[in-house]
């Protein structure tokens, strides 16, 4: 089962975990990740973070990433929830979760989801700081994290 949700509304991480558990069937291992807006960026206070995305392509890209993770790691359930719009520090941005029969597959599944989400899904972050607005730059460490899955 694949669940993809993109929108402005906050999500209930606990409910997402329970949903994964319910969908997991025989899978005894559920791994998940939550990303939260940090209070600082570039050495100064972050006032807000606005997430822009490409409606239509976003859902398609997330669905593809989820499908790839499912077949690669034999996952029985995958969830990706990603928020868009203006978020303040402490707000949840993303939930990624995977259920599998084996804990290693569940962990690797979620890491794969996050690595590809960060390099393939059409989201962009605009930081509102005291010094002004700054578009977050893509990080080479994220590209490298995604590239490690290609080499295997």
């Amino acid at each position: 089962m694949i669940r993809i949700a993109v929108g402005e509304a906050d999500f209930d991480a606990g409910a997402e975990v329970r949903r994964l558990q319910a969908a997991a069937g025989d899978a005894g291992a559920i791994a998940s990740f939550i990303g939260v807006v940090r209070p600082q960026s570039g050495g100064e206070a972050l006032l807000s973070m606005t997430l822009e995305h490409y409606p239509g392509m976003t859902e398609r890209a997330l669905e593809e990433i989820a499908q790839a993770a499912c077949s690669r790691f034999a996952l029985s359930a995958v969830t990706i929830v990603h928020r868009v719009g203006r978020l303040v520090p402490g707000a949840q941005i993303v939930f990624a979760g995977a259920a599998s029969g084996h804990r290693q597959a569940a962990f690797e599944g979620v890491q794969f989801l996050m690595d590809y989400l960060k390099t393939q899904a059409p989201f962009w972050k605009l930081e509102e700081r005291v010094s002004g607005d700054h578009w977050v730059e893509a990080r080479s460490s994220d590209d490298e994290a995604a590239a490690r899955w290609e080499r295997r």
Partner: protein
Amino acid sequence: MKLVYFAWVRQQVGVSQETVTPPDAVQTVGDLMSWLAGRGEGHARAFADRSRIRAAVNQVHAGPTARVAAGDEVAFFPPVTGG
């Protein structure tokens, strides 16, 4: 051909989308970027350093040699930073 822009590419171009009819010589994403760079100051600024721009054709990531045709939806944006 429908063009859509995101993040600072959108801000520099000045619109979030536009419909264009490029000349027949524009066959690829790269051709389209060159042609767009000549459409005005904002476009010129947005496409000044192409290494900073990524593209999608019909909502699928596409490199500079990917083909474009009338009726396509072509998107230009910076490298993605979600998650």
